[in-house]
């Protein structure tokens, strides 16, 4: 049976799995202790729960539990990982390499570092959204201390060549940080096989609670340390002070366990649904998939429908379908998506994009409904679009002198 409204914005956040909620509840009321209270049973219970969750989290990414630092989420993890390395390894150098399609939590952290006297190289991506390995190698210099490249992109789902990047980093004695927010729990991520030194990720993108995440910090080959960004009681091996969010951590742990057990099935099912959606929508004229279709998360599709504007498009069905657009109109800045622009898309195509993010609770009926609703709205709005009319009349839109405002 068709369930409305349909949520296809799972890259923004996911609903919490009821099994996660169930695991968390006792830790709000009965087992409410502070995990740092060493002298009574309330504290011991909380500590035990945190230790168990730490194992669940570590197991998902092939790490040792001691390598997991709990945080408030991926933004904190990005800040702690990058600023923490910049400060800890200041004697080795001050140069960081990242890329233009990173999340703002990475890009703005890098901007901060530049203001602190650091040097940052922003690699461009090709039209597929992938960085160029030769450019990366060429950017490495004696002062380079860190390569920070995301695992998978939040807007287009494109997966960077993580293994190649880490091999290159290792060859040059540079640390490798990756923002794993969109990838962890969705595709197999293994810090050892992937050669990751530091990785930020978060609970609420994988059916866990908001406000809790982790930073993976490698302990062996090499042993990595990051400078704490908050002063306090020295929790989390001195790298992240603050009383642990025990219920959140318990939920995050449960979410990681479920992801580990169900990832393969979820991914197989969702990639089929995603392909069905994408293939059907690509039947529309002048529709373009943004980013690599080959190196991509199984549940994500970003499509531009030329000559219609994204927000206007969403309005046609947003009573029943929730998704995102790269259109400027969805943000206060009036600037379209910088990620899509980095792929070389013109502003007009960036304005015309929709991001579909499927998730564990997406059904085939919902995808069928979405195909029809989106197709109908695209056709309806094109009938209303002066650009579509001009295109159909064979007028080159570039030949028109537009009044830019």
């Amino acid at each position: 049976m068709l369930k409305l409204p349909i949520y296809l914005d799972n890259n923004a956040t996911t609903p919490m799995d009821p099994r996660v909620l169930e695991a968390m509840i006792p830790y709000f009321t009965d087992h409410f202790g502070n995990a740092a209270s060493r002298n009574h049973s309330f504290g011991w219970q909380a500590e035990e729960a945190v230790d168990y969750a730490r194992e669940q989290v570590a197991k998902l990414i092939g790490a040792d539990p001691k390598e997991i630092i709990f945080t408030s989420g991926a933004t904190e993890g990005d800040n702690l990982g990058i600023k923490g390395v910049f400060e800890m390894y200041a004697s080795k150098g001050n140069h960081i390499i990242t890329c233009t399609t990173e999340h703002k939590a990475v890009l703005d952290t890098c901007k901060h570092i530049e203001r602190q006297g650091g040097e940052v190289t922003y690699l461009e991506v090709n039209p597929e959204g992938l960085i160029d390995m030769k450019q990366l190698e060429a950017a490495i210099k004696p002062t380079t201390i860190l390569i920070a490249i995301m695992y998978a992109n939040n807007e287009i789902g494109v997966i960077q060549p993580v293994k190649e990047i880490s091999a290159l980093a290792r060859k040059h004695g540079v640390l490798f940080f990756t923002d794993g927010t969109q990838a962890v729990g969705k595709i197999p991520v293994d810090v050892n096989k992937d050669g990751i030194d530091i990785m930020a990720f978060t609970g609420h993108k994988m059916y866990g609670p908001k406000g809790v995440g982790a930073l993976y910090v490698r302990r062996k080959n090499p042993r990595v340390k990051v400078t704490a960004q908050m002063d306090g009681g020295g929790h989390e091996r001195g790298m992240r002070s603050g009383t642990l969010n025990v219920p959140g951590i318990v939920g995050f742990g449960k979410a990681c366990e479920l992801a580990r057990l169900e990832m393969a099935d979820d991914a197989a099912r969702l990639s089929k649904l995603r392909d069905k959606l994408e293939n059907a929508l690509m039947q529309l004229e002048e529709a373009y998939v943004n980013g690599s279709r080959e190196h991509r998360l199984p549940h994500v599709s970003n499509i531009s429908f030329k000559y219609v504007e994204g927000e206007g498009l969403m309005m046609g069905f947003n009573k029943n379908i929730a998704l995102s657009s790269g259109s400027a109109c969805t943000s206060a800045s009036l600037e379209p998506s910088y990620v899509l622009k980095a792929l070389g898309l013109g502003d007009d195509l960036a304005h015309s994009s929709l991001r579909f993010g499927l998730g564990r609770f997406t059904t085939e009926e919902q995808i069928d409904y979405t195909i029809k609703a989106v197709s109908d709205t695209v056709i309806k709005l094109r009938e209303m679009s002066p650009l579509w009319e001009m295109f159909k009349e064979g007028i080159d839109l570039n030949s028109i002198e537009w009044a830019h405002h």
Partner: protein
Amino acid sequence: MAYSEKVIDHYNNPKNVGTLDKAKKNVGTGLVGAPECGDVMRLQIEVDDTTGVITDAKFKTFGCGSAIASSSLATEWLKGKTVDQAVAIDNMDLVEELNLPPVKIHCSVLAEDAIKAAINDYRKKNGLEELVFEEKGVH
């Protein structure tokens, strides 16, 4: 952000979508905005030469719901007005009628610009001097 009822109504049931014959002398066409900015409006008026009354108005818009609603409402207001009365349509009237939030005011400015561009196109075709308008500068 939630849309007002009136914006939703114009979006779902846009008034006067279409195209007038721009070759006709009594049809004025205004094309404003730019694809890169995410909104383009084309607004057309057909004028009765003897009375100066706008007998028909049509639009096509590439843009968000507020842009579509602004142009749809503008065409409704234009019909039956004389060209001189149409010049007086102010974007803030559209904002008020549609309850546009501040971030969408530029949509109404674009609609006002489209009206003025259509009027000037009509004037030019009929040997009249083009009117000079003050820049609103809210884009």
